[in-house]
């Protein structure tokens, strides 16, 4: 069945659905290589038109051209992939802003989508669109159950695969990838955050809806319901930030998603968001011995490409063996250079002392990528 046939013979309410053409259409999409492995909604012309009717933007407007792929993304192509991802037509302005934020971060042009590091965009939604479209900012914020989160995040991956042709075993060189590549979209819990929300911190009006994007390799939990001391909680988060496995170069950026309970506890002890960023910059470190044990002392010495310290051997050379007690082993090696390299967002339920650390990839031009949702004028 051609996809346009699915638009014909409108069905009246209550009439039984003939599932065979629908299943055929889904299988057709699989056969075209249009999916992320999960079934997609067949993007019939009528369905795509419904998406395009929800925006004032020209369907042929080019949102980005990436020379190395010789491909451009237009408003129409974003709408097609949003439809396939399962978005509602009225999500289209948010999907467009999400994609603009992803592009704004700078990784697409710099090859981040193809990297062996295997990450993908994490989206953060702020403003009234969270409630208008039903984004989840509370319990299970990284988990399933919410159409807006699931499908807007998924739309990014389908755009990357279908518009730019970045598919596994071809242009996508991910060594392992991450589950977040299917979809990773959270909303900030502005109502239970003690601080200004992310989009206001970035200069938007509170009444704006906005999308922020950070290309992340992983999201790791920090469970600390053991103390009410703000420094201990942040020390615990700092330990996850500085996990040796995540250290690739000397410094990194980090996105900390504080659960409301942690955020409120920190604010209750008088800490501003900036205070939190500054303390995390101080407390996110490893001892030189820790890095030696992991064969990463060279990273802490000079740069990612530095020669190893005398007496140490890197990577696949001879095993380094015991290193404890070597000179300077107790030295603190900070993994964060500046509080500006720390993003703090509040999301989740205020029901436990749980936060998360999202590990971004490298130093793209903007941190985070950001775009304001353009309202539909009609």
């Amino acid at each position, binding site marked *: 069945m051609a996809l346009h046939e699915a638009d014909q013979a409108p069905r009246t309410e209550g009439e039984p659905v003939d599932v065979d053409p629908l299943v055929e259409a889904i299988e057709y999409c699989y056969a075209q290589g249009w999916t992320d492995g999960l079934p997609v909604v067949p993007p019939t012309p009528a369905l795509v038109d419904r998406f395009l009717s929800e925006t004032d933007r020209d369907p042929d407007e080019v949102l980005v051209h990436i020379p190395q792929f010789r491909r451009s993304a237009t408003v129409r192509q974003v709408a097609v992939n949003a439809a396939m991802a399962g978005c509602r037509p009225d999500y289209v302005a948010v999907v467009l802003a999400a994609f603009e934020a992803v592009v704004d971060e700078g990784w697409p042009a710099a090859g981040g989508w193809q990297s062996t590091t295997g990450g993908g965009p994490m989206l953060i939604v702020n403003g009234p669109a969270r409630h208008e479209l039903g984004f989840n900012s509370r319990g299970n914020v990284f988990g399933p159950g919410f159409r807006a989160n699931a499908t807007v995040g998924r739309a990014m991956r389908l755009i990357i695969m279908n518009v730019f042709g970045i598919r596994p075993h071809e*242009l996508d060189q991910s060594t392992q990838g991450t589950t977040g590549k299917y979809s990773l979209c959270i909303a900030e819990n502005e109502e239970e955050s003690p601080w200004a929300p992310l989009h206001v911190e970035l200069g938007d009006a509170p009444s704006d809806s906005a999308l922020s994007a950070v290309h992340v390799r992983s999201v790791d939990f920090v469970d600390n319901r053991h103390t009410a001391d703000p420094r201990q909680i942040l020390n615990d988060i700092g330990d996850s930030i500085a996990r040796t496995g995540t250290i690739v170069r000397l410094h990194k950026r980090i996105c900390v998603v504080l659960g409301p309970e942690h955020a409120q506890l920190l604010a209750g002890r008088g800490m501003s968001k900036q205070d939190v960023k500054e303390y995390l910059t101080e407390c996110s470190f490893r001892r030189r011995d820790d890095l030696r044990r992991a064969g990463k002392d060279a990273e802490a010495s000079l740069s990612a490409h530095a020669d190893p310290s005398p007496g140490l051997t890197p990577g*696949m050379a001879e095993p380094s063996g015991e290193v404890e007690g070597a000179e300077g082993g107790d030295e603190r090696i900070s993994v964060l250079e500046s509080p500006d390299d720390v993003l703090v967002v509040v999301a989740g339920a205020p029901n436990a002392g749980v936060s998360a650390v999202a590990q971004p990839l490298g130093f793209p031009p903007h941190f985070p990528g950001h775009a304001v949702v353009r309202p539909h004028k009609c």
Partner: protein
Amino acid sequence: MADVIFLERRGVPAAAICTAALRASADAMAAIQGAPGYRYAVVPHPVSSLDDEGLRTHAKLAGPQVLDILRGIDTEPAPNARGASSGTPGTAGTSGTGA
């Protein structure tokens, strides 16, 4: 891979070096750039964790391949380069370097 093809199209002699593990992506990018079968030097994987001696060995494998590409000589890649290119000559279409 794209950068090397861009360079060639600007008339700059160029040759890419790729590890065997990343050939699928290299071939896909060459095809996107309109240069399917584009020839490049291939060395065993990995590179990033090699010590100085390992890097020297890789350089010795890559060097002759790079020279052949730049000279337009169609030879098989070094036998030690596991999974190496079949040596299909490919060009970016304009430079005449044979690469």
